[in-house]
């Protein structure tokens, strides 16, 4: 079968994607689920040895009304640390006086809002995949607290992030959603919630009130956790908490049961203000339960205990007299129920451990050997004995002591059960991962094998598909793989994805694997048969690799290898900075050699000799391999005729150093990574409110520079659109409050820059449209190269405009420098040195990576989110005839990082 290079590459990419998908399916943990569909299991009866207990119903609720105040991005130390003391005086007073039970609840990564809400309400640990679904949250079908409350007839009111409304569309009797998309909005999102509060607190017709405040998270995303805006926001939250608490207390006098107020955060906030990863700042959230039912603890204030975020669901279920959600892996926060009688306490713990052990039974085949399960069985037996004694009317010291013992045992069992369930979540599906890896590796080898052919002029591949499909090896492989599949699937301890898909699909994948293997083998034999005779030439051609080629090859390989170590991943930006510096030096060396030695007559003799030798080799090589024209390009021929003269020569010599200096400047703009992220950098200096004037000047200059650099080859219409768009960006930033506007001083504008942003988007779309139109025209009429080039350039400028809009104002110089460096490299380095397409592409890739890290947009160490960021900043290079690639690195700031994840 013959394939063109495009079709071949496309099919390879498709198969590769399939392999990656299979691998990811195995890699991402599947959350622990209860398989039973039955919506309502009867509550487990109280265990009793011999006699039967008379208490089979669920225990009555402990609290009448519950108010959950969830503050997005509330970090542990915002409440318990120095910030809490300073800005949240009422909360601190409550905590220190012992009106509360306060904990630091540890959130499991990914620390983004949707999975955290699910964790809080279902008690389960959602898989990593949920992070991707953050924006498209489907209805929560799992057993959850809200659903249980609704079935029990509780009336729930919700105000806040509209994610909840998507998750629980028909559960709230009254709701008002706020959207988390406008990150620049710090005040209105919260005012929209608070305005309902007075009215709701006066009324009596609700049982559960949920408030989700987004403002703090927005502040974190835009300005970071140490910004001066955080303090007033915390004060506002404290004031709201005080209001709710006082109103609840005033109502309590009439009611029989106490009320409960819960203050919690869904995730923390990293030092740069983002979230999503698993650093301590991101996973620690406060959990403060306030109720008059809690006994005031005498004695001094203790630091809050660490618990899991998932524990809240079980605790709330118990507190409201609801069944614990089936998939919850959390254990009851025991201090909350301490006020109840011993019998009730034991009953609560029993219910929770029955639920956990049920979950364990359904997810672990060898559950009987689990220490938690054994502990649970023991304590259940003891519990039965205690009930028996209790029902007999025994009220002595013995009963109390036995009760305490059972309690302790239950708590231990709960802890172990919860742990082993959480561990279950972190297990990989090895079989699927292996299958995915094999497919990916096979495609990779195939691609590598076909690279030499792809560089030929013909760029066509003879894929020996039919012969390999008919070969004996293929059937043998298929047979073996199927046998392995059957063996693995019948003996698997855990459910594995690959066994659960349909039989036909599995066979299809097996066929794919074995076909690929056969193709590779036949490819290999073909290559070896062809290559064997002219082995000497192979050696000759390999020696013609220049230092730059070696650097590019080993740099790329080394970077890939370095991703194997987590220490290197944390500081990946350093690798890139280092590599581009080295690349610049190597380019500088090459330029120097090109300029000085090309002119040096003294040594031209030797060079000439080499040159002759080389040309002989080339001729010889060409005789053997007719289609190897690339040889000329990779080997630089020292011909002094083409050397530019005068200032261009000096510009060429200076350009690598210029680029190095630019990179060094950009590097000091933003500190990224884990170890040095806290260091002061120029970016912080600029964003602090004292230096607003400097930032304004810088942003303005950058925008002007962007215009100068980009407009060169656009059509006049796009030039005007570009200028207006850049002006719009400046206005947007001014309305946003980042920069000064010389002609408008009043800050009464409420639009918050949304109108300006839309204005810019219109221009972006317009420029993109004209560019596409030009491209299409050149495709259809297919005569004028200049139209095509202009179309490409217009699309490019549209993307640059978009990037300029999305980048933070202090990062605008990065865009300028990237455009500048690209222009300089194209003019002074690639053209005179005649690098080939592959080299230029890789250099673009390196610079693109480095520039991505220069802008330091995402939270530290959160490589999962970087993954989604990487999809948005591919270094786009487009080649068109007669010109060196014009579309270099356009770094789309990952939109996800801005929006509140």
């Amino acid at each position, binding site marked *: 079968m013959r394939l063109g290079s495009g079709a071949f590459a496309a099919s390879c990419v498709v198969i590769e994607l399939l392999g990656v998908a299979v691998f990811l399916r195995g890699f991402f943990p599947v959350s622990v689920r209860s398989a039973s569909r039955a919506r309502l299991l009867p509550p487990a009866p109280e265990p009793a040895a011999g006699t039967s207990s008379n208490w089979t119903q669920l225990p009555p609720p402990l609290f009448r009304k519950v108010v959950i105040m969830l503050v997005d991005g509330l970090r542990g130390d915002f409440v318990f640390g120095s910030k809490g003391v300073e800005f949240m005086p009422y909360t601190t007073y409550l905590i220190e006086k012992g009106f509360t039970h306060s904990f630091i609840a540890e959130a499991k990564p990914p620390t983004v809002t949707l999975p955290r809400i699910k964790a809080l309400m279902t008690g389960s640990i959602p898989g990593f995949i949920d992070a991707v679904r953050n924006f498209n949250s489907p209805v929560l079908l799992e057993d959850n607290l809200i659903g249980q409350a609704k079935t029990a007839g509780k009336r729930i009111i919700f105000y806040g992030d509209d994610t909840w409304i998507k998750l629980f569309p028909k559960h709230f009797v009254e709701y008002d959603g706020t959207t988390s998309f406008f990150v620049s909005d710090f005040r209105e999102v919260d005012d929209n919630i608070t305005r309902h509060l007075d009215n709701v607190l006066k009324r009596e017709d609700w049982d559960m009130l949920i408030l989700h405040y987004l403002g703090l998270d927005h502040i974190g995303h835009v300005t970071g956790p140490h910004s001066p805006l955080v303090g007033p926001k915390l004060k506002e939250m404290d004031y709201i908490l005080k209001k709710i608490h006082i109103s609840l207390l005033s109502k309590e006098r009439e009611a029989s049961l106490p009320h409960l107020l819960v203050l919690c955060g869904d995730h923390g906030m990293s030092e740069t203000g983002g979230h999503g990863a698993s650093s301590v700042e991101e996973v620690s959230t406060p959990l403060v339960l306030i109720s008059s039912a809690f006994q005031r603890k005498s004695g001094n204030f203790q630091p809050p205990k660490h618990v899991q975020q998932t524990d809240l669901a079980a605790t709330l279920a118990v507190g409201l007299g609801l069944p614990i959600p089936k998939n919850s892996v959390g254990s009851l926060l025991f201090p909350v129920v301490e006020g109840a009688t011993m019998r009730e306490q034991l009953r609560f713990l029993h219910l929770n451990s029955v639920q956990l052990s049920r979950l364990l039974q359904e997810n672990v085949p060898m559950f009987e050997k689990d220490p938690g399960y054994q502990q649970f069985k023991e304590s259940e037996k003891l519990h039965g004995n205690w009930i028996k004694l209790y029902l007999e009317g025994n009220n002595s010291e013995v009963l109390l002591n036995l009760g305490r013992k059972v309690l302790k045992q239950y708590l231990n069992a709960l802890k172990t059960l919860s742990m082993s369930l959480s561990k279950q979540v972190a297990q990989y599906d090895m079989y699927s991962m292996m299958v995915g890896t094999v497919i990916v590796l096979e495609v990779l080898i195939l691609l590598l094998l076909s690279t030499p052919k792809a560089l030929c002029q013909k760029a066509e591949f003879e894929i020996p598909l039919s012969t390999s499909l008919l070969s004996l090896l293929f059937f043998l492989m298929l047979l073996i793989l199927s046998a392995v599949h059957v063996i693995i699937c019948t003996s698997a301890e855990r459910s594995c994805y690959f066994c659960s898909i349909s039989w036909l699909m599995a066979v299809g994948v097996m066929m794919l694997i074995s076909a690929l293997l056969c193709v590779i083998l036949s490819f290999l034999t073909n290559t070896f048969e062809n290559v064997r005779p002219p082995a000497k030439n192979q050696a000759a051609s390999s020696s013609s690799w220049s230092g730059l080629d070696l650097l590019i090859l080993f740099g790329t390989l080394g970077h890939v290898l370095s991703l194997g170590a987590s220490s290197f991943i944390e500081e990946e930006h350093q690798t890139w900075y280092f590599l581009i510096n080295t690349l610049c030096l190597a380019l500088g060396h090459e330029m120097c050699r090109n300029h*000085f*030695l090309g002119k040096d007559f003294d040594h031209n003799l030797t060079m000439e000799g*080499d040159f002759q030798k080389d040309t002989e080799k080339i001729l010889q090589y060409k005789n053997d391999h007719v289609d190897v024209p690339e040889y000329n390009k990779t080997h630089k021929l020292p011909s002094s005729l083409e050397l530019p003269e005068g200032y261009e020569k000096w510009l060429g010599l200076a350009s690598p150093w210029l680029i190095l200096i630019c990179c*060094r400047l950009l590097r000091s703009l933003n500190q990224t990574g884990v170890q040095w992220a806290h260091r002061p950098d120029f970016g912080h200096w600029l964003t602090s409110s004292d230096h607003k004037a400097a930032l304004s000047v810088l942003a303005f200059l950058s925008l002007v520079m962007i215009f100068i650099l980009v407009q060169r080859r656009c059509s006049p219409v796009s030039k005007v659109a570009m200028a207006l768009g850049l002006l719009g960006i400046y206005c947007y930033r001014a309305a946003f409050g980042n920069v000064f506007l010389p002609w408008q001083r009043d800050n009464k504008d409420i639009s918050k820059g949304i109108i300006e942003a839309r204005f810019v988007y219109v221009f972006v779309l317009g420029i993109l449209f004209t560019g596409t139109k030009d491209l299409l025209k050149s495709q259809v009429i297919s005569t004028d190269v200049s139209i095509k080039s202009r179309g490409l350039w217009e699309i490019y400028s549209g993307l640059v405009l978009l990037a300029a809009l999305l980048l933070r104002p202090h990062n605008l110089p990065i865009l300028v420098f990237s455009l500048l460096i690209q222009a300089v490299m194209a003019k002074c380095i690639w053209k005179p040195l005649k690098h080939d397409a592959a080299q230029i592409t890789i250099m673009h890739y390196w610079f693109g990576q480095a520039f991505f890290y220069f802008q330091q947009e995402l939270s530290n160490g959160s490589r999962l989110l970087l993954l989604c960021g990487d999809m948005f900043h591919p270094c786009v290079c487009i080649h068109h005839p007669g010109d060196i690639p014009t579309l270099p690195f356009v770094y789309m700031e990952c939109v996800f990082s801005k929006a509140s994840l």
Partner: protein
Amino acid sequence: MKDTDIKRLFYAHLFCVFSIILTTFTPSLFLEDFSVLETHLTWMCICSVCVTIVNVVLYLLIKPNPSSKRSSISHKISRLLKSCVYFFISCLLYHAIIVLYGAPLIELMLETFLFAVLLSTFTTLPCLCLLGPNIKAWLRVFTKNGATSIWDNSLQITTLSSVVGAWLGAFPIPLDWERPWQVWPISCTLGATFGYVAGLLISPVWIYRNRKQLTYKSR
């Protein structure tokens, strides 16, 4: 003739290696609390001074390149002065490159500069000794097939290996291993030193093994 040359090269290099090993151990006899890691700056000074002395002495003893015809005192002095200036310039250049690579600009200036000096002693100084302050000769040696004697070859190898050593030495700095030698510029200087020593040891062996292929054009 060639074998004796290689032997001389080998012994000279062994002497250099020996001197570097001495710099790490002998100063502790005279100086209190000396160790390579803790009093790193002292060690850097001692090492660069020692390597300079050894290189100059070896050059005077062996005289690998026959000296030019004009050997008046004034010419020699001008050569010496020129060499000193070149050395200083190379130090500044290395300093600039190191800063461009990401070393702090203002803090730890002394450390950075001493590292530049050490790197210059490993690379520029042997070049100055063997080739003299002659940029064209340098450019010739550091191009492909530019070597005209085994001394040039050894120069290529030692220079390249010390620079690559320093380059590789920078990798562990940002990592979170919390080791004492990850502090700037210790790992880089150690890398450069190891690279230099390795170059010194490898080059005679490499030249010996490739002595058949190495045919130098007389010029």
